[in-house]
């Protein structure tokens, strides 16, 4: 019996390590456990109240209950559709359909946090516009890794669909790749494979509730705002680190960021884009808990050396009478109102002759 058990645990351990390491296998597991298709006891846990509620297992806390959902309205733009719009964006903008934008002849989206690239053909008959949208917390990372440079390739056909179904889409077959062996996400994957099941959620709710009611903390990578009304992604509100919204930025650091943004701007201008814009989406904490803010967005947007034009959402959000109405309480993202403000700003640019 002992012998059989020990063999079982060896085989089980190896299997779970391999499954959590190989991205292709993880993709299969994600698909099988996906909350949209798997509602059984072994499906993944999901929360309708937002990704931060989901991550922290705080589904029981009513104050974070705010459902998502966006409405997209076709703008009045006449029949002059002469814009090829390229949007290099992230989860804030990836689900916006082309119909939400004005005067669009073609629309192409590429994620700036993946290895995706899309092609484009220089065409002087069209207004070719590139918008580089990024959540504030990722900006420094993108600029330091310079990954936004390689997102668009000239003289190739733009063939990526505007909306992609899921991350890891490129891993479609079984197999372990050499880069999988030391997968940096192995702990998240193990956690997903071993413990992210509906039948285990009550235990996790118990720990989350203990942390929340006794210690006023959220579990995992989630933090509670000072006034207790919102959840923030923890990495964005810790005092230091590349994602921190409060780490003091030296003049030298700001200059480096400006130089990198200018490089990107000049690169894409020389590649044939008639207009290139930068849109930084403020962290929820930037607007809702502004007393610790390091002023990164205004330091960039107001810098006289900045060459790239910006779609300034920070000023609009900051001057809102009720800034709390722009973000979902239990989610990293904006709500419908916040998104509509951004789309409105973009359409103003697109409608300009």
């Amino acid at each position, binding site marked *: 019996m002992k012998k059989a058990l020990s063999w079982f645990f060896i085989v089980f*351990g190896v299997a779970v390590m391999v499954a959590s390491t190989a991205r292709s296998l993880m993709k299969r597991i994600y698909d099988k456990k996906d909350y949209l298709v798997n509602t059984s006891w072994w499906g993944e846990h999901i929360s309708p109240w937002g990704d931060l509620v989901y991550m922290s297992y705080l589904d029981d806390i009513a104050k974070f209950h705010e459902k998502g959902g966006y409405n997209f309205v076709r703008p009045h733009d006449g029949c002059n559709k002469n814009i090829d719009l390229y949007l290099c964006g992230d989860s804030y903008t990836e689900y916006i359909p082309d119909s939400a934008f004005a005067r669009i002849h073609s629309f192409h989206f590429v994620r700036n946090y993946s290895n995706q690239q899309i092609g484009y053909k220089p065409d002087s008959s069209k207004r070719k516009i590139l918008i580089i949208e990024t959540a504030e917390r990722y900006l420094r990372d993108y600029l330091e890794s310079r990954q936004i440079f390689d997102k668009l390739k000239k003289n190739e056909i733009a063939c990526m669909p505007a909306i992609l179904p899921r991350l890891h889409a490129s891993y479609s077959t079984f197999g372990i790749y050499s880069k999988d062996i030391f997968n940096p996400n*192995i702990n998240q994957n*193990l956690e997903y494979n071993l413990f992210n099941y509906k039948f285990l959620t009550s235990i996790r709710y118990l720990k989350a509730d203990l942390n929340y009611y006794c210690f006023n*903390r959220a579990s995992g990578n989630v933090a509670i705002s000072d006034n207790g009304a919102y959840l923030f992604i923890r990495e964005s509100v810790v005092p230091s680190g590349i994602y921190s919204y409060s780490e003091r930025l030296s003049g030298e650091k700001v200059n480096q960021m400006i130089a990198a943004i200018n490089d990107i701007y000049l690169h894409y201008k020389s590649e044939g884009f008639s207009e290139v814009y930068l849109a930084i989406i403020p962290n929820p904490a930037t607007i809702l808990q502004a007393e610790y803010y390091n002023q990164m967005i205004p330091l960039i947007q107001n810098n006289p050396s900045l060459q790239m034009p910006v779609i300034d959402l920070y000023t609009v959000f900051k001057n809102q009478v009720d800034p709390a109405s722009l973000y979902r309480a239990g989610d990293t993202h904006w709500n419908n109102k916040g998104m509509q403000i951004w789309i409105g700003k973009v359409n103003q640019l697109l409608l300009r002759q």
Partner: protein
Amino acid sequence: MLFNSLQFLVFFMVITLSYYKLKSQKSRVNLLLIASCYFYMSFVPKYILILGSTIAIDYVAGILISKSSGHARKTWLVTSIVANVGILVFYKYFNFLLGNIEPLLHHIFPSHPIPYINVILPIGLSFHTFQAMSYTIEVYRGKQPPERNFIVYALYVMFYPQLVAGPIERPQNILPQLHEYKVYDWGNVKEGLIRMSWGFFKKCVIADRLAMEVDFAYSHTGLSSCSLWLAALFYSFQIYCDFSGYCDIGIGAAKVMGMRLMENFNEPYRSQNISTFWSRWHISLSSWFRDYVYIPLGGNRLGETRRKLNVMFVFLLSGIWHGANWTFITWGTLHGMLTTFFPGRKKGVTGNFSNLVFVCLNFILVTLLWVFFRAQNISQALKYICGMFCFRGGQTKFGLNGIELSLSILLIIIMLVREAKFPKHFIKSDKAFAAYLTCMILICYFLGVFSENHFIYFQF
């Protein structure tokens, strides 16, 4: 791979069970070496090349030292030490040294940029370098025969339970064990698992909880003296629980496989003076410096003045060993000064109350010195200490709420009492063992703070 990660738990289960399935010591050693390579490469794979090269150099040096005599013997030892120290200096101190002579370099080469190297410090470099050096020194002294089996020698340096943060082992303790076939012993397994669970408790439940308060205090300005004192006291327990917790997990993991690693801590905060503190804190490093630096320099054999100089030098080296930052150097130097100029109480002076007073005074002194260890730079450390003694003004704010602060204090008391009164990690009855382990798992899960926090000593 962090000990406090799911990856380690699954890895440990698979490797330990497989270890006992193998019937020959040779295959067990091979398995452990492969496992240790994977363990190390999980941090940054390419740094295995640095570790591999030091292993190869010291393996060859050990054999050459044993084969030669006289001047040649010394030459091989020096070659091996220069290679080890050279790698350590290059990766750990090169940029620090350049930074300190930057004004001079700018003056001499005004148009040339400073050639800083863009590297990350290989994890645990100081630990395995010292462990490798202890092998060649012991072979040179004739106290340890050279290891002919390369795999066994590589495993001596790379044995995963002590690879990245010690204890810094001696070849006399580990190498014979790597040649010995360990028969499965349920008592060892129980003791190892109990020790591991205690280590996880100290790391995940205590150290990482205290870290939230400490990080808060060090990242906010304008805090009151009360807030700063609490965080400083918490840091003393954080670093103890973090590092000794790591050692408990490592020693326990080795014990499950029947291996004995040396103890690294012995209730250091019960010391009545700094000298005693250092005989109870990070014992493997203190004894390394004693055996390979202090005694070869003459120890206490060459008069009092020379002894004091030797002690100061050892503590300065200890500070430098911890990191390329003036904070560590200051911390080491201050410990050296206190050890040298404030000797302990005379033997025979006892009394429960006076002992307690000296323990408290010594703990406060150690706590104040930890501020240099924790701060990012000297300026922050000095500001922090000034703040601790500026009893007016400042906001009394904490990174934890009242309930969690109280819980933290309770947990520290539990930890101190457990280590003082129940130092053994063994439970005879299987039922009691199962109950204990279940309780520890539940406590670690429900009270643990899990945000993939590194162990503090990994940076060294």
